[in-house]
């Protein structure tokens, strides 16, 4: 079944492509088989991450950027992520609603994805889904993260260019953003520039970037700050221009290789930890864990030693 789906996907069949994405979401074994079989067909797509606080206008901007990318003849993929409720397991995926005008364009593939427990702003299957869209033939893949605070920065391990979308009037939140998100952005957008305080926010961001002169002098890239009004298209040309400039900056240096190698390294780490976690689940029953918890509660053993015991039992080696 998987071979047939892959064959159809490589010929440009959207339904087969969609089924493959479902399989990598639902089934780890199948994900592994699929990625193994398509890996040689990947590596062509350019990946643009769009991140920022909830409701800042990420989806509306992606809608406009799809148009720009299409006008230049690119095949475009979109993976739009929204959160899964930790309490019910359910999710309401509402990004697609802003991009629906593109859904009948044969050169666009949009897929909504729920986080299903992942905390970094993406879903566990996002990277595999990107590979599928890459092999399917997308030239550009937009990845919209969930609305983020400051620590959900997994997008930096996934995208070639990271666009951070903020809005005016976040006030002290800009300070908070500085901590985590600021460091991962290649381009800053102040969306909703029709609202009061846009200029102040722009100014604040520029100021902050100036203070980090050392950092970008070393990297060779000074992140630009672009102001947009997503629903009137204002500033979208400038944003697309900035994205293209960053793309050229990466492609014309060894930076892109550096970035992609870093990404593969992170991916290996993630796969290893997920495999170890699964192995532990297989080798240790709830009862075994309960025994250890009991021992810890009675202060017969400390948590570190208990963890060592778990790993020893699961992996068969002392760690």
């Amino acid at each position: 079944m998987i071979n047939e789906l892959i064959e159809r996907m490589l010929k440009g069949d959207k339904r087969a492509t969609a089924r493959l994405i479902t399989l990598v979401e639902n089934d780890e074994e199948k994900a592994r088989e699929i990625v193994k079989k398509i890996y040689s067909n990947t590596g062509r797509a350019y990946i643009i991450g769009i991140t920022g606080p909830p409701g800042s206008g990420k989806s509306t901007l992606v809608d406009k950027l799809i148009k720009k990318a299409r006008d230049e003849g690119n095949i475009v993929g979109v993976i739009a992520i929204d959160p899964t409720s930790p309490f019910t397991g359910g999710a309401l995926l509402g990004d697609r609603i802003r991009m629906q005008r593109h859904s009948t364009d044969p050169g666009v593939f949009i897929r909504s994805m729920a986080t299903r427990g992942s905390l970094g702003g993406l879903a566990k299957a996002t990277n595999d889904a990107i590979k599928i869209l890459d092999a399917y033939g997308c030239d550009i893949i937009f990845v919209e993260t969930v609305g983020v605070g400051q620590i959900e920065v997994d997008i930096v391990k996934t995208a070639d260019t990271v666009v951070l979308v903020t809005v005016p009037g976040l006030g002290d939140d800009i300070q908070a953003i500085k901590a985590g998100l600021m460091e991962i952005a290649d381009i800053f957008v102040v969306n909703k520039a029709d609202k009061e305080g846009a200029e102040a926010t722009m100014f604040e961001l520029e100021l902050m970037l100036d203070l980090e002169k050392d950092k970008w002098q070393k990297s060779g890239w000074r992140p630009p700050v672009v102001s947009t009004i997503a629903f009137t298209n204002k500033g979208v040309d400038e944003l697309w221009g900035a994205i293209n400039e960053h793309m050229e900056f990466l492609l014309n240096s060894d930076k892109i290789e550096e970035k992609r190698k870093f990404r593969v390294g992170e991916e290996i780490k993630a796969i290893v930890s997920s495999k170890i976690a699964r192995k532990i689940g297989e080798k240790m029953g709830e009862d075994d864990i309960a025994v250890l918890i009991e021992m810890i509660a009675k202060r017969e053993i400390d948590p570190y030693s208990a963890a060592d015991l778990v790993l020893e039992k699961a992996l068969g080696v002392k760690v």
Partner: protein
Amino acid sequence: MVKRSKVRVLIAKPGLDGHDRGAKVIARALRDAGFEVIYTGIRQTPEQIAESVVQEDIDVLGLSILSGAHMVLIPKILKLLGEKGIKANEDVLVLAGGIIPPDDAQELEKMGVGRVFGPGSPIEEIIGFIDETVPKLKKFRGES
């Protein structure tokens, strides 16, 4: 029972009517019941809906229509899905809701709509029907 968080539902409003309360109520209720729900909103063309079904690989298509145009829109959507190789009741469960008279509902159910849920339908009944019907889809029988 198929795990609800692996059941993907698309709620869409085809045609031109702007009555979106029912669609939103249903979308939220299904999310709260643990399903993955994609909401595409009002003024969707049958073509947009059929394409979204393909790209999102959904299992349940929920159509909400209060404009009276259901006998035109729903058959059109079923036809477009068929052209893409997606069969109602086999590949996808199609549900309809809104203002749909009983005679039309019967007709639609003959065409492939799993069930029509009119005003006042208890949400438990809708969820129960999905839980009961989804395992019969090819995807969850492991056949495709």
